[in-house]
């Protein structure tokens, strides 16, 4: 990887972080939204303590998925605002650099949100979530999620229905990552055998690698008119 390629990636990430650190709008919105999703679940599903502990992993990942969509949408909307996407298209760097730059900043936002939602959930539902394994799975899941999410948000933002299209494109594609993450997280939470967990972690790893590779390869087609 040449230095100019790296510099381009960092320039994209840096721009997103600068804008966000100035206002901190996106992060706070994603956070509040996550907590709201958890609250809504409570009212809707009225889960008693027992079922609840069984679905901790599921509830967490649904929350991450929704909050993540929010973040992805906004991060791409910024590119569309004053025609910036055209500006990016005109730039003489490999399009994959733009992809990695956006994916990195999206991942940063997602991890920041998770870093607050996990302890909060831990207090609210009185479960210990601080297993290194669980944290690892969270990281792996988030990587897969943003890898695909960045690609698809770049697509959806170029359509007329951009406000609504992202979750529709993203959710079905992400299901394998989602299921694997839920299973693996649940395994760690319920103290399952390592041998039971490892297949799910493997799936996550494989998917992350595949998704990143494919996204890397097709991003050119997506972002070009």
């Amino acid at each position, binding site marked *: 990887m040449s230095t100019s390629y790296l510099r381009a990636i960092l320039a994209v990430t840096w721009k997103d972080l600068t804008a966000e650190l100035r*206002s901190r*709008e996106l992060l*706070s*919105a994603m956070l*509040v939204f996550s*907590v*709201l999703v958890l*609250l809504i679940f*409570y*009212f809707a599903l*009225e*889960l008693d*303590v027992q079922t*609840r502990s069984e679905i901790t992993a599921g509830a967490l990942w649904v929350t991450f998925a929704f909050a993540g969509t929010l973040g992805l949408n906004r991060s791409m909307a910024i590119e569309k605002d004053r025609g910036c996407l055209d500006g990016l298209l005109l730039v003489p760097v490999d399009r994959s650099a733009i992809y990695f730059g956006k994916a990195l900043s999206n991942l940063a936002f997602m991890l920041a949100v998770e870093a607050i939602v996990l302890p909060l959930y831990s*207090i*609210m*539902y*009185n479960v210990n979530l601080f297993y290194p394994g669980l944290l690892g799975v969270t990281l792996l899941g988030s990587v897969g999620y943003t890898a695909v999410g960045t690609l698809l948000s770049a697509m959806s933002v170029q359509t007329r229905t951009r406000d609504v299209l992202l979750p529709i494109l993203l959710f079905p594609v992400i299901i394998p990552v989602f299921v694997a993450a839920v299973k693996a997280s649940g395994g760690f939470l319920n103290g399952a055998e390592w041998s039971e967990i490892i297949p799910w972690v493997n799936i996550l790893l494989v998917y992350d690698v595949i998704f990143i590779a494919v996204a890397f390869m097709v991003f050119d087609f997506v972002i070009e008119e």
Partner: protein
Amino acid sequence: MSPQPRLLHVLNILSALLLAAGTLMVFWYAPVERVMGAVQKLFYFHVATAWVGMIGFIIAAVVAILYLVTKDLKWDAINVAAVEISLVFFFIAIVLGSIWARPAWGTWWTWEPRLTTAAILEMIYLAYLLLRQGIEDPERRARFGAVYTIFGGLSVPLTFVSIRLFRTIHPVIIGAGGSEKMNMTGDMVVTMLFNIAVFSVIFITLFWHRIRLGQFAEQVERRKLQLTH
């Protein structure tokens, strides 16, 4: 900048004295509760902070209406002050309740309707802060803030009502420890009422300070403006 009015000075001192008195009363006057022991002392602060927090939210809604009618930004300053202070008090109430819940119910948090309602209330006013953050024009910020606090104010009492129903239809069994109804002795009631009064005074004092802070910020802006142009 105008110096603190005399009454505010008096309130400062009064708040400090009352807080000391209230605390003394909690620890020396009120009896130790039989079932829960010393943790129960948190109760007085818990109830008092929750109480003033709610009052503040109601004040915010009333002030919001005043703002919309008069369009005087003064009311907006009061509206923000009320929400911010109440948000803090209410947060303290939740934290105290949480600390209390740990020994009482064996958990920091449980999904009991009242707690959930409290959490939602906090969320409404956090959303209010996010809303304001996203608007630059002070006048529009004030208007939207006012409208939203009115909806918040509507949502609060009705949420409580619906939660009542919630409980009567589906009694929720509270977590591990279980809770017997506290038997409040007369001393306890007196202590509780006194502390509510104490925190009300503290609330008024802080409220006043916060409003003044808003005015100072406005003045600083105006000075800066004169300097830059």
